């Protein structure tokens, strides 16, 4: 085989300064997490595939790298830290419901844990999508309610603000978009989607239409109150009561959390947008129709840097993940993809070279060109 520096699709080697920057970013994040009382867990990159079968969606199953070991075991490369951590900890946590025959829990709660390492997922060949990427993430286990969400969102925003600070300043000067975190709630649109299903809508298709903001399709199935169209356009309805009592109560709490965090983190723009997370349904009828369920079941959030449509970090509440593994433990977590944090932290994009309509004499051409180049302008001769 000819020796070259070529690597498989979606895999990158970080050399020299890029490696130093990545390690620096990682060290800063780890330091912040440790200061906040999070303890590191080091998890294997190869695991049995079978325990995750009930947790997989058709999409996530297609992303897994699976193989049969020499002793016949079906193994998988680590595609996500959270289910792996949940599976390892569930036997040591309080059992949920009847029928779980297990010794008394040995792990004290709450637990604040963090991890770092590569995850490997099959991704189609597209810009910004790596097949191997490095994550730093954290989980808070055993704290219910708003308190846990406030703590984890605050930690997420601190890490995000710190990681993007130098580039943000530089980017702001260049007119770049701010760092933006979109907040939502799993299941918040369930009542409106169920009502549309009762009017004849296909729930899976309508959920997709809301997520893609397809105005025509959403308008076709929306109720007289227009709540789904309002969510598609503005992220939240002007009157949260239209979402139904439970979703309304949850949305009001989320809006209050957003306001509180916006004051605390002025460098990050926080937006509540329920359409962004329309796929994250909780009602069993909607889950069945969609044919998959996300493991988030409460607060959900994603961070966007610059113009890239792929999030640099995401997280949320996932109590039901532990419940599906037999443990009764509230949990909130998040992770960052370090390649994306590094790739486009400035959010700048190349400006169009603008012809300068300034008449210049022949002797001045070099000076004009140098000046134009300095200012990112083009020269039309």
């Amino acid at each position: 085989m000819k020796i070259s520096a070529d690597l498989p699709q979606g895999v990158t080697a970080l050399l020299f300064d890029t490696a130093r920057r990545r390690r620096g970013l990682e060290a800063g994040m780890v330091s912040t997490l440790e200061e906040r009382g999070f303890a590191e867990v080091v998890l294997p990159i190869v695991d049995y595939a079978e325990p995750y079968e009930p947790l997989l969606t058709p999409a996530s199953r297609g992303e897994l790298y699976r193989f049969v070991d020499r002793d016949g075991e079906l193994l998988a490369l680590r595609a996500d830290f959270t289910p792996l951590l949940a599976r390892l900890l569930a036997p040591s946590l309080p059992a949920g419901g009847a029928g779980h025959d297990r010794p008394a829990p040995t792990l004290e709660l709450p637990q604040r844990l963090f991890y770092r390492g590569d995850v490997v997922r099959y991704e189609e060949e597209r810009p910004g999508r790596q097949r191997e990427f490095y994550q730093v993430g954290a989980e808070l286990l055993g704290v219910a309610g708003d308190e846990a969400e406030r703590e984890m969102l605050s930690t997420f925003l601190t890490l995000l603000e710190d990681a993007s600070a130098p580039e943000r300043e530089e980017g702001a000067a260049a007119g770049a978009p701010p760092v933006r975190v979109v907040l939502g709630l799993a299941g918040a649109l369930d009542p409106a989607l169920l009502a549309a299903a009762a009017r004849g809508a296909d729930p899976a298709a309508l959920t997709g239409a809301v997520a893609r903001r397809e105005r025509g399709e959403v308008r076709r199935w929306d109720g007289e109150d227009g709540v789904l169209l309002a969510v598609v356009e503005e992220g939240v309805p002007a009157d949260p009561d239209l979402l139904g009592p439970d979703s309304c109560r949850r949305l009001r709490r989320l809006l209050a959390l957003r306001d509180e965090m916006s004051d605390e983190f002025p460098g990050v723009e926080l937006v509540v947008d329920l359409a962004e997370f329309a796929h994250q349904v909780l009602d069993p009828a909607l889950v069945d129709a969609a044919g998959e369920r996300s493991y988030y079941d409460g607060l959900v959030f994603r961070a966007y840097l610059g113009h890239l449509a792929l999030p640099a970090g995401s997280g949320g509440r996932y109590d039901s993940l532990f419940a599906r593994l037999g443990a009764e433990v509230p949990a909130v977590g998040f992770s960052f993809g370090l390649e994306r944090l590094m790739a486009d932290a400035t959010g700048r994009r190349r400006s169009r070279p603008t012809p300068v309509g300034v008449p210049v004499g022949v002797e001045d051409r070099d000076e004009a060109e140098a000046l134009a180049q300095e200012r990112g302008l083009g020269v039309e001769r």
Partner: protein
Amino acid sequence: MIRLALPKGRNLTPTLAAFRTAGVPLSGLEDNGRKLWMELPGEGLGKEGERLEVLILKDKDLPLYVEYGIADLGVVGSDVLEESGAELLVPLRLTEGLSRLSLIGYPGALPEPGAQVRIATKYPRIARRLIAERPWGAEVVELSGSIELAPMLELAEVALDIVQTGRTLEENGLTELETVTGVAPCVVVNRASFQRHRPEINALLQRMEDAGVAA
């Protein structure tokens, strides 16, 4: 400044007509000759003095530019969009410039259940999904143009391609064996750009709906 990606080819004319009818004239576009990247007055975008950057891109490349955030929004055929698999918001479909994606071939060439054929197309992903739902099997032959020639020269029994008027098929003795799906130029928006420019983008979409050029 919002950056709009416009498609070269069959979707350009209906796209420009739709924007103009919606009150976004894109003045000066015609005067820019072969330029691929230009700045125009952003009339109709709702902000006084707003400018608009316009990119002229091949239909096939456009979803990538919008997904990657090089452009904030654009217009692309639903056929190309589906083939690309790009993660984009798709708020509207234009009401003009409609066509259909169809299986074409000589009359009677639609495969029988259990048959194994070759299918020529510019849309291999869509073709593979289609084959998975059919009682016949097919080898997908990816071509980049003149797809109608494939059944005529027996490179493939059938082709999967865009049909607008059907005149090319008629002139070559071919027929539309089955309409697979309707195709329309779609307004696509980058997810991050939608959050950033929400008021302007919503206003533009509303104007297009109000003008009846998109739904």
